[in-house]
């Protein structure tokens, strides 16, 4: 009865009653499928007027990322609102609908020798809307930057159904506030992104990947080598350290491994690889891959870690979690070491990697729920001691109640609440999904 008034908002075939609740939460009693910006606007206007809560989803890979509300009134799905609106090849810009997967974008742009320089996981499932809303990133942010460096404009449907444009379609623009930034990483709590314009890059003419594998106890050598390359004039695209358990899955060797990518003209890549070869520390194993082989390696890299797209029933022994950790660049190695040590103490298995040039690490955890909770708390305390932060990017719903997903509330929380109130006064959008229960 409650939802009889929903009929008429969208055609009947776009509305589905949701009988089951996903184990990761962030679900909705009624699933409403948007095919257009107008559909999004209609659903939100309705929800705003009727004070219904709305969760937003598209690829669903981030369903386990934040959220203390198991079921909203409406689950607004953008998964079918996809496609390229405009690709201006000469301007290196792309305007795209939010439900387009990163893979779809990559394939289309490759036909023109271009790319969106984002190397996030699960590209065939994760949509650009979700990647932007969650501010996801990969190892190559070292050189190419993250979403905030690539988004130049958006169209946003505000909570009352208004459509507001931010930024524009040109690569350089300082007219008004840089409102784009507010929506990147806001977890859909300020509005529904209905269109995104991105800055593109040409595809590199040549790709190389150098792997350095360090035997047990070689952390000091990794640190010294990393400092040396960062202080050189080399231009690595990634400088990602893999912990031994993750490296074993990637390479077959259980060693701390440094993945150094170079993407440039062939001669420049070769020159940099020569530099690496000349500086390889004694005891470290060194191998080099090029082009297709390098691309395949990174493709494999992007398919690790839990993924909320799957609606698997987890039993207690194989509960999965994922963390994003921010730290000073050179604390990355320490954090990887600490994460490994604590995994033994808390009886969980972990795989981890982190960028020594950009300060973001990822830890994937598997184990008993109570052990995962104690592990995260212990790791968080170590990271915060080094002034970093830990965010849980994947946790089953019931565990999100036990571990604070976002960590401490920042001292300027009142500003965040003020912004939320300005954009979504009735708090209908992704309620309790973000920092401090925003």
């Amino acid at each position, binding site marked *: 009865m409650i939802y009889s008034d929903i009929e008429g908002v969208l055609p009947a075939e776009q509305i589905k009653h949701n009988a089951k609740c996903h184990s990761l939460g962030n679900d909705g009693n009624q699933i409403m499928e948007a095919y257009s910006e107008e559909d999004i606007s209609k659903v939100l206007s309705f929800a705003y007027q009727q004070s219904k809560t709305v969760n937003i989803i598209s690829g669903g890979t981030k369903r386990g990322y934040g959220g203390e509300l198991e079921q909203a009134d409406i689950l607004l799905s953008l998964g079918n609102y996809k496609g390229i609106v405009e690709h201006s090849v000469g301007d290196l810009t792309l305007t795209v609908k939010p439900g387009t997967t990163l893979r779809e974008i990559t394939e289309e742009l490759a036909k023109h020798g271009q790319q969106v320089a984002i190397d996030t996981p699960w590209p065939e499932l994760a949509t650009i809307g979700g990647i932007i809303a969650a501010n996801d990133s990969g190892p190559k942010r070292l050189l190419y930057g993250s979403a905030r460096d690539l988004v130049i404009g958006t169209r946003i449907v505000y909570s009352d159904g208004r459509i507001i*444009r931010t930024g524009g379609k040109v690569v350089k623009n300082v007219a008004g506030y840089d409102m784009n*930034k507010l929506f990147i990483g806001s977890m859909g709590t300020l509005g529904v992104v209905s269109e995104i314009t991105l800055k593109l890059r040409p*595809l590199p003419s040549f790709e190389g990947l150098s792997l350095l594998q360090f035997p047990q106890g070689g952390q000091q050598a990794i640190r010294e080598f990393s400092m040396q390359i960062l202080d050189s*004039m080399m231009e690595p695209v990634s400088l990602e350290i893999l912990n031994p358990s993750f490296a074993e899955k990637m390479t077959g060797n259980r060693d701390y491994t440094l993945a150094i990518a170079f993407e440039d003209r062939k001669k420049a890549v*070769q*020159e940099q690889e020569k530099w690496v070869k000349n500086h390889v520390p004694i005891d470290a194993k060194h191998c080099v891959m090029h082009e297709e082989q390098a691309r395949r390696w990174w493709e494999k890299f992007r398919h690790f870690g839990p993924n909320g797209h799957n609606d698997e029933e987890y039993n207690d022994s194989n509960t999965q979690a994922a963390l994003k950790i921010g730290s000073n660049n050179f604390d990355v190695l320490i954090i990887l070491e600490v994460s490994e040590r604590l995994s033994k103490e808390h009886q969980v298995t972990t795989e981890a990697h982190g960028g020594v040039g950009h300060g973001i690490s990822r830890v994937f955890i598997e184990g008993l729920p109570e052990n995962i909770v104690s592990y995260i708390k212990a790791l968080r305390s170590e990271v915060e001691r080094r002034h970093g932060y830990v965010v849980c990017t994947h946790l089953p719903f019931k565990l999100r109640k036990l571990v604070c997903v976002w960590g401490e509330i920042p001292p300027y929380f009142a500003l965040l609440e003020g912004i939320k109130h300005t954009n979504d006064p009735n708090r209908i959008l992704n309620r309790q999904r973000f920092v401090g229960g925003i």
Partner: protein
Amino acid sequence: MFGKKRQKQKPDDAVIQQLMQIVGDSEVLYLKEDLIAYECDGYTLSKGMPKAVIFVKSTKQVSDVVKYLNTVGIPYIARGAGTGLSGGATPLGGEVIISLVRMKRMLHLDLKNRKAVVEPGYINLKLTQSISDKGYYYAPDPSSQYACTIGGNVNENSGGAHCLKYGVTTNHILGLEFVLPSGDVIELGEEGIPDRPGYDLLGLLTGSEGTLGIVTKITVKILKNPEGKKTVLAYYDDIGDASQAVSDIIAAGIIPAALEMMDSIAIEGVESAAYPVGHPRDIAAFLLIEVDGIDAGIEDQIDEILTVCKNNNVREIKVAKDEEERGLWWANRKMGFGAMGAISPDYLVQDGVIPRTRLPEVLAKISEISKKYELRIANIFHAGDGNLHPLILFDASIPGESERASKAGSECLKVCADVGGSITGEHGVGIEKSAEMRFIFTDEEMTAQTNIRAVFNPEDLLNPGKLFPQPGRCVEIKREITKVVVS
């Protein structure tokens, strides 16, 4: 028109006295003759007399001053070196200017983690100079970098010639400390660690033109110098060919560090100024193209650039033979705006952005505007990223010319907006372009922005009247513009 305000500027004015209590007697200017230099910033077409100028030395002083001014309801403006080009630091009349030029120290340098912490009054070029011996630099390089402050750069989200490859200020800011209009001190991006949980206030503050808070400390990213660098100068008889070459270079998969263009009138200016290169006077345009990166990869890119330029009917093309020649070419280019003084009594610089593929048609329209208003328009562009700087030349002593220049400038921006571009790429909106915001944003979209301002600056005492069109007041300012002489 300032008679009434002059009355208030007596040394026994209670507000001035209180400000002196907070920052010290010698740190407050209040006499009209001392305040004249603060009537405007680098945008000289609009002027207003401040109530006082105070020089702060610490975050606490900023906070104390702001708290006090809130209690008496007096508006205030933060100011750095005053090199802004849109009137962002220009008073409308009666504001207290909080000058940050004495907060000019580098507080911390961390080469290992590639970051530096500076106070807002720290000069842009000084940062690069102070780390260049270690092989590092700070990327954003506005033409005024020898004078402008990093605090000002943050507020304007400044660009520069090399932002095509390296991005603008916002891409290089890791952390900020700022004072809210409430007086509260906020720290964002502590230790420069990226992606801290919460809305990206760092991104919002950068480019907010001093309307959301007063920046008191900045953590910036520093970069390692590129291994190699090559610079090319290409002369064209036809500006359309030069424009096409710009698009073709980008389409060839090259991202130059800089890709600049100047037309014949601009060339006439720079050749008459301090750093003449000896460019032929009869060319239609030149391109200044710089490629940097790993040495081994540069030669191929230069070869491709030479091919593209030749395919587009270049008259003459050359690669800088040494650092000295490269330096001269850049000095000549960076003199661009100032050089207009050599060929015209006054000029007005605009800052439109367009999709770079629309360059030829936009140039044709700017040429029509020039004819319509009977004013010469020189063009200097960051062509690679579609950022145009039409320089409208006029003589303010001729009745009506200032007004025509202002109208011509606004029309140039309309052309940019109409092809899907923006009214400003790096100079900011300030006072100058607040009316033109309507070219690209609806009232609803601007309200979405002013609502955000209200979260930070609810009383609108911090830099009021900037960025957004204000009915009535805006008309007055435009009227005022036509009265003022620039040189």
